[in-house]
């Protein structure tokens, strides 16, 4: 009786754990819309440092985590300024090319004098 029941109990436990994992994911809004997902990420980011501190206290490790340096770099602004620079150089290119050609011709003329 017990030997027949054991596989059933094992399967029921596995299904329970897997179903529980899916339910927890659904219940915390991880499988919902964009707003819920980004809200969940915000909550997780807010909860991580205190949780790490608590775990470190629990294990007796009182070391100070290095603070994340506040980098004043915006990829969006860097990209936009790069695009602006490229386009302005491209728009000036014909004028600059003709100026440099004129200067080159003048230089060669002066050399041949």
């Amino acid at each position, binding site marked *: 009786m017990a030997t027949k029941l054991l596989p059933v109990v094992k399967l029921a436990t596995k299904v329970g*754990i*897997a179903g529980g*994992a899916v339910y927890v*994911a659904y219940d915390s809004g*991880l*499988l919902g819309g*964009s707003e819920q*997902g980004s809200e969940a*990420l915000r909550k997780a980011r807010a909860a991580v440092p205190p949780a790490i501190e608590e775990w470190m206290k629990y294990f007796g490790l009182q070391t100070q985590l290095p603070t994340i340096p506040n980098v004043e770099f915006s990829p969006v602004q860097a990209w936009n300024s790069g695009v602006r620079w490229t386009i302005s150089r491209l728009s000036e290119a014909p004028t600059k090319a003709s100026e440099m050609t004129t200067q080159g011709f003048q230089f060669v003329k002066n050399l041949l004098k």
Partner: protein
Amino acid sequence: MADEYGRKWDRCLADTAVKTVTGLGVGVVFSVLFFKRRTWPVSFGSGLGLGMGYSNCQHDFRLPYLIHGRTVKDQ
């Protein structure tokens, strides 16, 4: 309007990251419990999460342009 566009992108990327990681986690659970620690449930789960995130992003960006029509019945 540019701010709203940037906010949409932020929301989209955060949501996609969360869903991919959730799918990965659920895939790991299923892999360990039912599929003898094979890799494919993990890949399947994270792919599922990525796809859900992509679909949400697509809907979010198309939202202002979605037209909802109604059929008016003749009375």
